[in-house]
């Protein structure tokens, strides 16, 4: 291709609430632009990872460059940058948005605006993106496009009357969307002759090419041989290859210049060197300052991960290493538990991120894992003035050395139909929430704002929210900061032995309730033994709850005839096999599942 006319480039993304049809619309756009035939289309082209497809969410940003022949007779280059769709990946979303010049807002014609829609739109508007709405799922019987249009105008304040009415699923209205992209999304700015200034919005590790950096060129140009520098991490390298994103493949090209979206490789070994949000510049002709908005991503949620089979420890280490190559937001360090042996304390962006990593370890690396209760990072201020960031409850200093503790708090926005305001507020109160405000979006819907301790929402808050609103509530949050809190460590004793892997930090007022539930849950999980087993919850050495697993009274096969021998043996083998999957604590065998089941303590 000859020199690229910047006025014919459109860099955009699609934003939507989960399930409103973002990926489906992306598929249709790619299909319509003709680079792929219908037959080649895998459903949802952009969601590559098996896991993403199963969960119907986008985890890593995917990007594709397509060619569109518009009605004005010109050929346009579209760079569609797909953004992650979950609050855990908020920062990555913001960086992807920063790489765009505009955004398509997809709103479900039946459901209207949801909490995530708002969060993403505001994020897009913060980045000065031109946002135009499309109303999707107009084929649904419950579709109310007019109502939704008004809602968009009232709530978000963007023009919606001429929003394309589409059904991405059925391919209705897609041409209109393509034309709107040309007309409503501005061409990129920037000057190829300025010093190089490129935004990293993602990177992946490839075992042949090293790190592949996804970037948007804001100013200047980059090609093979350019010596580059990452301005935040300070890493330098020489560019080996540049190119753009074909559907499902990397297509090398001569040069990337201002306004373009593409990738570069430079024999970089570690994604840590190419942090999302960092600015790439020319080592020999650097730009004056980096692009705004870079921040170091910190883990918010921690848990212990242990191989179910202790001998698999090296495998787990290798697997984490490999995942880390692609995921700079995953942190881990080795730790040892009396109960679980050798494992790792791992840090994640949020609970979804945790679950994804856990599933990938189990699925792609064939590991059987035991995971301890996820916790947040507490700040422990000691009497001697030292402050430690606590990620593992077992490391809590002696209470006598603690001056006070702080826990992270988030600002949460919950969108709910008015009939459920009561139950939702009750839930937030139960979770130690601090009420901020209620805003009525329209007669039947409201946006409730609360400040909530992060540790109250990391495990089952979302499920509780859904069940108490019959699925109608949607939820988004962002970190607010740390606040002093009355926190204690809850210990669990099984047959009088403290089980370190079951300890967790909890607010003093909830300690009794949580302790009681833990004991009840563990009673269900621990099989009966030949002797009685007390299960106790303790705070600072004081027992606050107790349950007892009664001794096994009877385990006998009354009748055993000839043909039963094989069956009988299978039964005995099952019993024996079951024991293998147990963890031995003192004399007591605890099933692996017990360590996880304690995460599900909600009363519903």
């Amino acid at each position, binding site marked *: 291709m000859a020199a690229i006319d910047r006025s014919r480039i459109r860099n955009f993304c699609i934003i939507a609430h989960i399930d409103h049809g973002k990926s489906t619309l992306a598929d249709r756009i790619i299909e319509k632009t003709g680079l792929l035939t219908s037959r080649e289309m895998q459903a949802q082209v952009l969601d590559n990872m098996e896991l993403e497809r199963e969960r119907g969410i986008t985890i890593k940003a995917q990007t594709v460059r397509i060619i569109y022949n518009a009605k004005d007779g010109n050929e346009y280059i579209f760079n569609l940058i797909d953004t992650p769709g979950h609050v855990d990946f908020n920062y990555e979303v913001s960086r992807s948005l920063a790489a765009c010049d505009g955004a398509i807002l997809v709103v479900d014609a039946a459901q209207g605006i949801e909490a995530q829609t708002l969060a993403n739109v505001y994020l897009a508007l913060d980045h000065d993106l031109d946002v135009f709405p499309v109303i999707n799922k107009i084929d649904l019987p419950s579709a109310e496009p007019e109502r939704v249009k008004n809602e968009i105008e009232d709530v978000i304040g963007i023009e919606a009357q001429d929003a394309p009415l589409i059904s991405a699923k059925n391919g209705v209205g897609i041409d209109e969307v393509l034309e709107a992209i040309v007309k409503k999304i501005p061409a990129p700015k920037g000057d190829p002759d300025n010093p190089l200034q490129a935004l990293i919005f993602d990177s992946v590790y490839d075992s042949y090419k090293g790190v592949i950096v996804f970037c948007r060129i804001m100013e200047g140009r980059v090609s093979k041989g350019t010596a580059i520098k990452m301005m935040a991490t300070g890493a330098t390298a020489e560019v080996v290859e540049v190119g753009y994103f074909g559907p499902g493949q990397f297509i090398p090209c001569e040069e990337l210049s201002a306004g373009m979206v593409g990738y570069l490789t430079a024999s970089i070994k570690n994604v840590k060197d190419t942090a999302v949000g960092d600015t790439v510049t020319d080592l020999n002709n650097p730009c004056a300052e980096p692009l705004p908005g870079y921040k170091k991503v910190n883990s918010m949620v921690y848990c212990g991960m242990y191989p179910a089979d202790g001998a698999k420890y090296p495998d787990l280490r290798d697997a984490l290493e490999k995942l880390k190559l692609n995921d700079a937001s995953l942190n881990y360090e080795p730790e040892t538990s009396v109960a679980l042996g050798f494992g790792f304390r791992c840090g994640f962006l949020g609970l979804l991120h945790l679950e994804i990593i856990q599933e990938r370890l189990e699925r792609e690396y064939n590991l059987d894992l035991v995971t301890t209760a996820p916790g947040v990072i507490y700040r422990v201020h000691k009497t001697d003035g030292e402050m430690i960031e606590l990620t593992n409850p077992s490391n809590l200093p002696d209470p006598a050395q603690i001056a006070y503790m702080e826990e992270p708090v988030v600002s949460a926005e919950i969108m709910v139909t008015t009939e459920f305001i009561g139950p939702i507020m009750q839930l937030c109160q139960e979770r130690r929430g601090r009420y901020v405000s209620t805003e009525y979006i329209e007669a039947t819907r409201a946006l409730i704002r609360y400040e909530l301790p992060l540790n109250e929402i990391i495990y089952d808050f979302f499920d509780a929210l859904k069940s108490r609103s019959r699925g109608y509530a949607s939820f988004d949050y962002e970190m607010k900061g740390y606040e002093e809190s009355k926190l204690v460590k809850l210990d669990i004793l099984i047959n009088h032995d403290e089980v370190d892997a079951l300890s967790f930090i909890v607010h003093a007022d909830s300690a009794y309730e949580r302790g009681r539930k833990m004991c009840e849950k563990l009673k269900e999980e621990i099989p009966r033994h030949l002797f009685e087993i007390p299960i106790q919850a303790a705070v600072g050495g004081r027992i606050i709850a107790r349950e007892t697993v009664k001794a096994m009274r*009877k385990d*006998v096969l*009354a009748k*055993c005839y000839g*043909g039963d*021998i094989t069956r009988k*043996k299978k039964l*005995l*083998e099952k019993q*024996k096999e079951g024991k293998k999957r147990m963890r031995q604590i003192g004399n007591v065998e605890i099933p692996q599942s017990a360590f996880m089941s304690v995460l599900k303590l909600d009363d519903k």
Partner: protein
Amino acid sequence: MRELSIYIHIPFCVRKCLYCDFLSFPVCDGINYVNQSPHAKNERISSYVNLLKKEICSVSAQYEEYRVVSVFFGGGTPSVLPLGAVSGIMERIGASYHLAKDAEITIEMNPDTVSEDKLREYGVCGVNRLSIGLQSADDEELARIGRIHDYRAFERAYETARRLGFGNINIDLMAALPGQSVADYERSLRTVAALSPEHISAYSLTLEEGTPLYENRESYRFPTEEEDREMYALTGRYLASCGYHRYEISNYAKDGYECRHNKVYWRRGNYAGFGPGAASMVENVRWSDPADMGQYRDYVQSMAARGGEETKREPSDFAPERQILTRQEQMEEYMFLGLRMMCGVDEGEFSLLFGARMEQVYGTVIDKLCADGLLTGERGRLWLTERGIDVSNYVMAQFLFDRV
């Protein structure tokens, strides 16, 4: 001459009991219960009996070197067979096997399906032991578990059998039935013992998944484990006072009347099973006939047809799965089956069979179980304690080796 026991499976019942998960079919197809003619019903059974006979004869050459010391007709309900069927089968066994003169020949029966004529036939063809499924002497309890007979029917059958001269009768009794109290059970137990049968099998009901009783388990009050164990202890105590000794976890006999056939299973003797799903173990090779009736038919046909083949094949060659037990598997079975018997396992026999001392193989396990009060022993024998019986699955599982 080596010894062999024969098991004959009769997979028919008038109706399946609500707790049963053994292989059996109703005599009539459920759908056509009303319309099915007695003729069609007999047709079905007699074609099955012919198949059985064919199987018995076609493999007999394999057992040329064996003396048959016991035959057991089990089910299902063997007594649903029409007149002439049992004697027909016995005739084939007599003709093609070396049947020992003193062989123990048992038939299981349901009080409602047996008649004086049938009992007379059994006696004539050599059956010398009857096993009657009573389960409870309480008609309400019987109805709750789906038995088709009442106590009165049982009594009639029992009296008839005695009158005809059967001198070795077992009565099956169940404990821990839905709605049953310890006192209820004790009444059944006393009633049965008062009849003075030579043998009593008394076992706790096991709720098996998939049975109607299991599906409806919420609608009954089942005895607690405490009550179950109380019933068990009561059985041992009371029957001892009546002259019975417990010789296996759930079996009680007067002196000289222990069931030889069942002891073959627990001692790992040779047995050949005939009929769908029937298990065989001969010289440490174990296999089962196909459980599906159609596949069983094909299996028998193909075995019968092999007469003309040059290479001689074992019956197990035709079975869907054949397991040649390794030395380790044999040891495991020796322990967990042997421990079902109150006389337990024998160290000398173990050495003889496996060329290794029990102590070497299982020393650690045995020491631990003895220390926990679950096993005890003296003079080269080892057996379960009372507590060991209660948790015998746990004890037995300890004798399995780790699989790699």
